[in-house]
């Protein structure tokens, strides 16, 4: 009897002991089956590519919508669009009075930094991994750097100085203050050089929805143009045009179709329609935004772009015009598929024309402009123009060609120094300080290192 007692005691004690010592192991839960830990993602080529491709989805309508922040808002802010059935947030853009708590502005900032995080996490994850092939590594890092550069390009042009964040580690990112525009551009340049160097000329699977070498060159050309390095801008644009992949120019009606010849880079759409296609078109008979009369009157008679890229509708007795570069929407998907255009070769002609005009290569500049004009069905301009007039022709052509695409008009007005003159003529409430958007107040709240732009 007594012996049994001790046996039981002796048996129960190790059980208890096991509980106390084995605790640590016992609370280690199995990883989730519907998710992969980061180290596993970057130890396999297909999951690394899956993580890379997700970054692209953030720009189009499929799972993000950065285009949704850049198609209408800079256009409302400049002189391209006016609001019809709009929220107070939209009206703040139109009147150049964005308040510090504007939700669109907060979302713009947030979605760009979310992409930057994914790029940083990808670059960091691949760098720390020895399993992937060198080719795959340099390709993925190149694409991530291209995308990161594009986000910073959009950020500096909207906000001026912005925090330059190059790591996914919260301890290194949470307190970063605003970095001077020049330093951000230096990083953009460095990323694009590396991308141009590392990326192949061919598109993966032959579809132009991932950045190749020419996409990096095209964005670099645009960056040089903004930095007023005319020679380099011309050189980069020439590389793209000279590749021969994108020329001759397509008819206006085919430009925005999926994988069109014009495309240098598009964001793939799962349902064949884009943000612009879905939201610029009238909903229940009435569009949300209308094109301004200023933009409409900028088109010459017979311009095929006005015919193909602009549509109109009777809105409670008033004929209104809206952007119709994209035809498909959630309701209309019968047409050929459309992807969100990021970079296209027509813009490269205009970059090169402007860069050449600044270098007094007037006839070369005019011939580039005439490439665009001839596709638009408008008469060529003569090459006996002054440099100033040639630059004006460039801007006029840009306005007609690139309206409601990625904030081009707003950025062009700023970099050419004409914004005060142009916008104060059409918007009585315009102030010079409005050239920069306000830093969203929540960002300043959560990072006390950030400062607000003047005028807000």
């Amino acid at each position: 009897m007594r012996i049994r007692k001790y046996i039981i005691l002796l048996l129960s004690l190790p059980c208890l002991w096991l509980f106390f010592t084995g605790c640590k192991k016992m609370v280690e839960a199995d990883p989730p089956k519907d998710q992969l830990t980061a180290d596993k993602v970057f130890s396999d080529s297909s999951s690394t590519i899956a993580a890379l491709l997700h970054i692209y989805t953030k720009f189009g309508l499929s799972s993000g919508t950065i285009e949704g922040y850049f198609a209408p808002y800079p256009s409302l802010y400049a002189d391209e669009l006016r609001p019809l059935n709009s929220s107070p947030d939209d009206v703040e853009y139109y009147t150049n009075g964005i308040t510090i708590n504007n939700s669109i502005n907060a979302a713009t900032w947030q979605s760009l930094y979310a992409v930057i995080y994914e790029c940083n996490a990808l670059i960091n994850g691949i760098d720390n991994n020895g399993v992937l092939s060198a080719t795959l590594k340099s390709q993925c890092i190149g694409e991530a750097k291209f995308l990161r550069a594009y986000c910073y390009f959009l950020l500096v042009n909207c906000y001026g100085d912005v925090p330059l964040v190059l790591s996914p580690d919260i301890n290194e990112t949470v307190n970063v203050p605003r970095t001077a525009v020049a330093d951000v551009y230096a990083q953009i340049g460095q990323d694009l050089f590396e991308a141009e160097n590392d990326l192949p000329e061919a598109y993966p699977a032959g579809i132009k929805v991932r950045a190749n070498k020419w996409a990096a060159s095209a964005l670099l050309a645009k960056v040089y143009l903004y930095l007023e390095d005319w020679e380099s801008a011309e050189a980069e644009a020439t590389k793209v045009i000279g590749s021969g992949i994108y020329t001759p120019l397509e008819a206006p009606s085919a430009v925005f179709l999926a994988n069109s010849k014009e495309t240098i880079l598009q964001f793939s759409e799962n349902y064949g329609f884009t943000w612009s296609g879905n939201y610029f078109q009238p909903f229940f008979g009435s569009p949300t935004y209308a094109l301004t009369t200023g933009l409409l009157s900028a088109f010459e008679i017979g311009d095929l772009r006005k015919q193909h890229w602009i549509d109109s509708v009777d809105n409670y007795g008033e004929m209104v015009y809206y952007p119709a570069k994209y035809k498909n929407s959630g309701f209309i998907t019968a047409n050929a598929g459309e992807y969100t255009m990021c970079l296209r070769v027509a813009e490269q002609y205009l970059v090169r024309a402007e860069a050449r005009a600044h270098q007094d290569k007037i006839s070369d500049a005019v011939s580039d402009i005439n490439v665009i004009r001839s596709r638009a069905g408008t008469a060529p301009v003569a090459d006996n123009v002054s440099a100033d007039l040639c630059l004006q022709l460039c801007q006029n052509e840009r306005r007609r060609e690139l309206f409601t695409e990625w904030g081009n008009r707003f950025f062009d007005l700023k970099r050419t120094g004409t914004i005060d003159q142009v916008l104060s003529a059409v918007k009585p409430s315009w102030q010079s300080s409005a050239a920069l958007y306000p830093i969203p107040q929540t960002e300043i709240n959560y990072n006390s290192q950030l400062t607000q732009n003047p005028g807000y």
Partner: protein
Amino acid sequence: MKIKICIAALLLLCLEASAQVPPVLKGKVINAATHEPVADAAVFIETTKQGTSTDAEGLFKLTLTAPDTLVVSHINFITRRIAVYPLTTKELIVEVEENSRQQDEVVVIGYGTTTRRFNTGSVSKISKEIIAQQPVSNVLSAIQGRAPGVFVSTENGLPGGNLKVEIRGKNSLSAGNNPLYIVDGVPFASTPLNQGKTDLTYANGPVSPLNSINPADIESIEVLKDADATAIYGSRGANSVVLITTKKGKAGSTTATINLYQGNSQVAHYIPLLDLQQYLMLRREAFSNDGVTPAAWNAPDLLVWDTTKSTDWQRYILGGKASVSDVQASVSGGSQHTRFLISGNYRHETSILPGDQYYRRAGTHFTIDHTSENNRFNISLSSSYTKDKNVLPPAMYGYALLPPNYSPYKANGSLDWTYPAINPAATLMQETKSETETLLTNLIAGYRIATGLSVKISAGYTRTQLSQFIKKPAQSLNPMLGQPNSAVFGNNALTSYIAEPQLNYHKDAGKHSIEALGGASWQQSINNGSSIKGIKYSNEQLFESLSAAGDIAYAQNNFTDYRYVSAFARVNYRYANRYVVNASWRRDGSSRFGPDKQFGNFGAVGAAWIFSEERFFHERFSFINYGKLRGSFGVTGNDQIGDYQYLTTYAPAAAYSGVTTFYPVRLANPDYSWEKTNKLEAALELGMFNSRAQLTVDYYHNKSDNQLLQYPLPSQTGFTSYQYNLPATVQNTGWEFALQTVNIKQKFFKWTTDINITIPRNKLVAFPDLATSSFANSYVVGQSLYVVKGYHFTGVDTQSGIPQYEDVNKDGAISFPDDYVVIGNQVATLYGGMNNTLDYKGFSLSLFIQFVQQSGLMPASLPGFQYFVNSNTTVLDRWQQPGDVTTVPKATTTYGSDAFAAVSQLPSSSAVYGNANYLRFKTISLSYNLPATWMQRIKMQGCRLYMLAQNVFTISSSDTRIDPEMLSTSGNIPALRTIAAGLQITF
């Protein structure tokens, strides 16, 4: 006063020659006061431990071979010991004195039991009798108002709907505030399995898993509140612990019981809404005030719809009558060593909504327990299985407020989608089926190693599976939105295991008594789910076949693994039955925290002084027969957050160019850890006039810090928040009173009253950098967590009829958030219940009143404002002409008109904040036990006829809410009035 023990005459007679072998001792146990038989009393021979329990007639039979002592015990009576001799042939009558001294009642606590007398913690008990009086499907409805400190509110009155339970207030800013539910020692997950899944909560919201516990299977519910009672549950005790103990078999002759009731449910209160003429008048007035001529697009109710036909939408949607049927059957019995209980139940409810919806539940419950001959080894197994099915349309409440002349059909009979773009007739074509299967099993085995020392292992397995099917036929969808028909298939299951070895030690030495407990716990919960949405069905007959879907919109699954491991100990020391000290400790590890942060230590110390046992007290205050002071302090924790927040992971997302992509799910934080609640409590318990009046007064003071929340981040980090411990402090204090009195106690008549009152206070004590955090508009330091902010409404301008608000920042405009001020706290400031029970012979009448003093938001009075919403009649008091003094603004409906902007701010102003007190006749139960003599003739043990009424009527300070229990302005299906009649037969 000394406890008066009446020693009844004891008939011990006599020896008569008998041929009965073995000799049988027959007897009857009766109530000494009323001479009524006492059923379910345990009767056993002290030496042999052989025993039985009495039947409904109080009768028992035992084999007796040698002279011995007979022990008769019952929870409600004082234990009797009687010398007995074999060969007694005459029936032995044992009179037992009723033990109204509630302080000696057994209470279940964490990992054990104690008595009220020696308990150092705060425990409220709800008995099976109280549950049986209420014809409800969810046991949480039955505890509403019954226990101090426990606040239950209905979120959705439809069968299967969720209930919110908050015990002693809200401790956590953003982690869960659910109490820990333990069923027979096994934790039961109370979080709805479909929570947070948009498509799956579409119809009935989250489905409460507690609905799978059959209320009739419950023996008692104990709510553990203070540190002393909850610290043994360590990290999960912060929000209190609800112990549910199921019924067990009783020794004695085999007994079968059938209990059935049938009844009807309906909405008890309708909001007074405008009739057609009033509605049209206000709409026309709004247009005329705005100086706008109504047009078809902004006034279809005036120009398009028939202005002569009227529908009472409230009664059309909510006015149905639902039926309730409930059957319970059980068989129990066994010997002193082996007992069993087998029961089955079936419940069927229909819904008040138009259409054929129903809720069905069937289940079984089974327990067996066995003790070895030498009483050293015992083993028990209990298991219950429940399956329910709930068929409902999507949320319909909103349609109850449609304008009276709205019609879902056009003149040609087709569905009208023009104004508004929703349609009740179409919505009713959509349907959700939810089926829940729940299996609960628990095995306990124990062995007494030596006197006072025993080991025990408890092991449990729980599985809850929720399968849902939601169909949306093409006809039910607005064709202008171009949505395809769809069917969603959801499947979520939670499987949990638990094993808890324990070692118990008990020793009495003179005036010293010590009890010690040591144990460990290992738990694992796996949540596995999937949902698939099929769209573009060409044939809607085949909705339930995924292969008939033209396309799969999404197919996704989820998996989480939660592990939990603990060691715990408790030591209880008692001296001279007067002084008690109780200390408990628990070390918990949870997989919800990152490596190195998983473990936390929790513990509490409680003490009690039973001062009524002191001689000096006795002599001076003899009317107080029981008095105890107790107090406790300690720390408990909370880990009710999502799993894996410390892990950087990627999950599949939408495809890019045909390739599935992976996105980073979160910004991981490996450093967060337990949220902690420090609890302090002091209480006084008194029993007066021989325990005819019993009073318990509790004061608690709890502080929760290290708050687990999604901490906002600058988005330059890539995310807008991450899991974090914020050093914010939330304080919950309160007074709880419970008074039980036996007002009249005569031979045939007894009247008892139970009252409980809680006065809670909740306060946000500290919140670092609140003003710049994302919580700036949600919380205010110094106010409760239920704070409501809005514009300060200063009245309606008597000249213009435009509502006026305080311009806090003096910028000349009223705008969010700068002009927001605290307008109140949407929370109960006093609540409780009062139950009166009257017993006369076989009749028993019980009346329970629940009351709540609270304030909150109510629907705004917006005269003529919208064409798709009817208003309550308060809008008739609107401003009409200069000089009118009223709080209701003038009618307006047009954007841009002088009053429009100010009127549209009314719902977010103090104008909609007010008193929401109510007093509800919650339960009325009348039952009649047929006399025993009748029953004997038909060889039955008992027969009870009863009527039950739930939510009978409510007196409320405002009738513009459908149910004052629901403080949100939007409203939902309220808790229904149910009236049922039933019959219980025992063989």
